């Protein structure tokens, strides 16, 4: 190798191995070519990648770990090295993929070396300059992305949205779901394989784990019920099981050991236990203190009865060891949820304590407020379930499962949605699945093909059908575009989100209402809302929000010294502990203010309240 101390260093090209300068070469481009040649023959490991930057005249050789690499077919002299003979051999199983890699037909390139190649998308795109060929154009995408169909027909900005919806879909997530105790899981009743799939979808065996159903969709409004991304569902379809799913939630508990030899115990808590919630709450527990399988449970029901040792150590009584007191520490069903006990699992933790897992099953039938989405980033919330007889129908008597507002398509530019509708429709008639792999469809050819199939079965060529109003029986003036789309049910459901509060729990410290669904909380009336009411001049509404509906507290204030006092119910008189006066007045203030006064007092500041009149 040439020496580092070459006189004409500027004319030389530096070589970096894993980012470290090791040497100089005369011609970087030639050097890189040589390495590649040797790598393809097998003289150099195929894990080595090399990259020549012509702009700054540098060669980077990378052989370290952590580089993401992707396979390409090598093209030499305008011809793909992956010949039809090799293809035949591969099909017969005489050779495998690694054979191709070993024999310099396919090579893996990292992100840097990709900068040096001129890659063709398909075999017919190859020119003289081409150096590599894509194995399959859609290979550039990951798992979720490559399973989307007709992505090249959609607006780029919609893709991430569509992938997000795919991740949120309910489906057949695991075959061993019966033996699993997931904290929360959704399982679709009748999941279907999509009528339009992609090659990656099939390769990854995702059709064995479908997450959606093929809906008959018509693009139509329905008396304003599907305005702005609302959906109208066919009630009869829902009754037949459309979109139906099961929701599992697992509650788990453990007999924890405490220092001092004390331990929790699974049992029906005795009525003497601290924090006993009343007999009816424990009614569904079995003898062992754990709820029995296939029992209907409701909000507030205890499903795992457990007693714990008291929080504080007890004092010794004069009779020696006192009676053992316990505290109720049972697990109850979450607020707003109900269901049937699916199964109960008894086990032991690594620390040899008893573990209980109770899986609650509840059936989630689609209802107004549940979310659906197609694979083309068209989401919507169910607004209305229409009886079948009121839905629009075609002359053949086809009644759509779902009415999608036609306005949701044009400004989002999801042409793939319409293509999928056509393909799904054609596929459902022919009993055939169509391919929607990225960059493999010619739009106009595909539409022609689908149109031919549709026409041959007596449907309209472009998918628009004549419809009759289910309510009046009159024919619609316009034709409705109808097709079959793969729709996913997403796990955002009203039944898991609905929350109301009129009265409820308050925080211990401030006596203000709690926040959040699990604590039955209210909605925050924040600073900006407060300011808005001031701006309106609605002083009594403001007082109601900030005081009456919040932390109103009656407080006795001494007329003599201005300090806070209290009312002594035994002597039936108000007392000021500061000055001893009994001349006090009851005033309503916010508890937060009382707390402020107390805190100021703790810092040796005594605020005195002067009462007027």
């Amino acid at each position, binding site marked *: 190798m040439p020496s580092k101390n070459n006189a004409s260093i500027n004319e030389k090209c530096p070589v970096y191995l894993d980012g470290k300068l090791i040497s100089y070469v005369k011609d970087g481009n030639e050097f890189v070519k040589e390495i590649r040649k040797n790598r393809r023959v097998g003289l150099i490991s195929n894990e080595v990648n090399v990259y020549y930057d012509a702009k700054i005249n540098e060669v980077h050789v990378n052989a370290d770990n952590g580089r993401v690499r992707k396979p390409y077919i090598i093209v030499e002299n305008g011809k793909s090295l992956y010949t039809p003979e090799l293809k035949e051999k591969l099909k017969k199983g005489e050779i495998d993929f690694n054979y191709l890699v070993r024999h310099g037909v396919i090579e893996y390139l990292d992100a840097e070396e990709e900068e040096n190649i001129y890659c063709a998308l398909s075999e017919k795109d190859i020119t003289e300059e081409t150096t590599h060929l894509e194995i399959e154009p859609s290979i550039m995408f990951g798992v979720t992305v490559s399973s989307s169909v007709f992505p090249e027909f959609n607006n780029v900005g919609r893709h991430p949205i569509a992938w997000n919806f795919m991740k949120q879909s309910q489906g057949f997530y695991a075959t061993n779901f019966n033996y699993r105790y997931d904290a929360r899981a959704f399982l679709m009743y009748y999941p279907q394989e999509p009528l339009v799939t992609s090659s990656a979808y099939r390769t990854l065996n995702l059709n064995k784990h479908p997450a959606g159903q093929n809906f008959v969709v018509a693009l139509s409004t329905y008396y304003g019920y599907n305005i702005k991304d609302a959906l109208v569902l066919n009630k009869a379809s829902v009754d037949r099981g459309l979109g139906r799913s099961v929701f599992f939630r697992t509650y788990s508990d453990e007999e924890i050991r405490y220092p001092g030899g004390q331990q929790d115990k699974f049992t029906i808590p005795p009525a003497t236990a601290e924090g006993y919630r009343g007999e009816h709450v424990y009614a569904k527990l079995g003898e062992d203190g754990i709820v029995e399988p296939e029992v209907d449970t409701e909000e507030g029901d205890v499903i795992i009865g457990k007693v714990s040792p008291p929080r504080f150590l007890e004092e010794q009584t004069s009779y020696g060891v006192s009676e053992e007191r316990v505290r109720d520490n049972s697990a109850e069903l979450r607020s707003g949820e109900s269901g049937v006990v699916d199964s109960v699992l008894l086990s032991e933790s690594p620390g040899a304590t008893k573990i209980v897992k109770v899986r609650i099953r509840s059936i989630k039938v689609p209802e107004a407020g549940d979310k659906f989405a197609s694979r083309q980033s068209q989401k919507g919330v169910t607004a209305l379930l229409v009886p079948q007889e009121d839905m629009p129908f075609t002359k053949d008597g086809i009644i759509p499962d779902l009415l999608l507002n036609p306005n949701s398509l044009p400004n989002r530019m999801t042409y793939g949605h319409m293509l999928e509708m056509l393909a799904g429709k054609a596929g459902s008639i022919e009993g055939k699945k169509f391919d929607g792999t990225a960059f493999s469809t010619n739009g106009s050819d595909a539409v022609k093909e689908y149109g031919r199939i549709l026409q041959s079965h007596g449907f309209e060529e472009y998918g628009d059908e004549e419809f009759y109003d289910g309510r009046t029986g009159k024919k619609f003036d316009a034709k409705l575009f109808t097709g079959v789309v793969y729709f996913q049910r997403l796990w955002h459901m009203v039944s898991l989100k609905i929350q109301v509060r009129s009265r409820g729990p308050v925080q211990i410290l401030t006596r203000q209402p709690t926040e959040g669904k699990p604590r039955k909380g209210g909605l925050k009336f924040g600073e900006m809302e407060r*300011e808005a009411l001031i701006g309106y001049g609605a002083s009594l509404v403001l*007082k109601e929000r900030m*005081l009456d509906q919040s932390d109103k507290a009656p407080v006795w204030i001494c007329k003599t010294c201005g300090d806070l006092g209290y009312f002594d119910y035994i002597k039936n008189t108000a007392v000021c502990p500061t000055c001893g006066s009994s001349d006090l007045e009851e005033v309503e203030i916010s508890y937060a203010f009382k707390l402020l006064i107390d805190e100021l007092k703790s810092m040796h500041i005594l605020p005195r309240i002067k009462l007027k009149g």
Partner: protein
Amino acid sequence: MAAKKENEISIKNVDVQYGEPVGVVAAQSMGEPSTQMVLRTFHSAGIATTISSGLPRVIELVDARKKQASPTMIVPLDPKIKKNYDAVKKLAKKFQEVRIKDVILKHIENLKESKLELVLSKSKMEDNMLTEDQIIEKLTKKFSGISIEKKSNHLIISQKKAKDIHSTRIAFVHIMDFQLSGIKGINKAVIMQNDDESFYIFTSGSNISEAMQLEGVLSESIYSTDPFDVLKSYGVEAARNAIAYELKNTMQHEGVKVDFRHMGLIADSMTLTGTIIGVGRHGLAGTKASVFARAAYEETVKHFVNASIFGESDPLKGVSENVLIGKQIHVGTGLVKLAIKKEDLKKIKAEE
């Protein structure tokens, strides 16, 4: 009785009712559109001077920053010269600040011999109507300890009593920064044309007090975007207008419609004390009478401690403190009070 009737009518006819929380409404009317302004801030390319605009400018004004990012002046001219381009051009030259570094091609510092060599640019000097002799004269007048030697277009400045290198270097920096002509703080003056073909001067940088002394300037009507400069030269009423109109212009420039009276009110309260105070905790919010109101806003501990030291009392007249303790606020519907006591009412009825 007649007077009472008159009052009744006037109260009924006013646009803004008695007890309307105008301050809150003004704040909201300015605040809400400014949240949108952040999203659609666009850059106007190709304009010579970059004038700060959008939300940063609004914040700058409302906070009453002493040092503005990019103050500008619009200088109207005397009717005698305002249509004469050459005269206006001459005047504009008097505005622009020219320093030594603006008239040289390059400079060579020789710290060893404590010599500074300046290569003067003829065209730059001509541009600014300066001659070599003028420069030499001004330099010798200002700096006593130097001698100046002239060699064609080179000026060689040497220190008579050279101390250490550090002080020599500082002296050289001062020389390079020496102002030859123009008004301090104005780094550019551009001639602009009105619709009626008369000219006015637009400057980057603001210094009203010096600009108004120049001949040919309408000294009573210079517009500056720096409220503090306006305050200094024209007084507090003008400063109030400066703030209000600047707010208006900024909002208008962003395409946001806000009623001028909101901005007028903000400017009014900012200049209420006779000088300009900001809206934040060092300004308006800090001058609130109530301890609770101040403590609720910022620096809670400081206000409580001070209040306890000085034995302050809070009459609970404002809004914040009444919300805090849970009383009805004295605003809007809460302002109405029974003017006659119940007992008095009985007496009156009895008399009747």
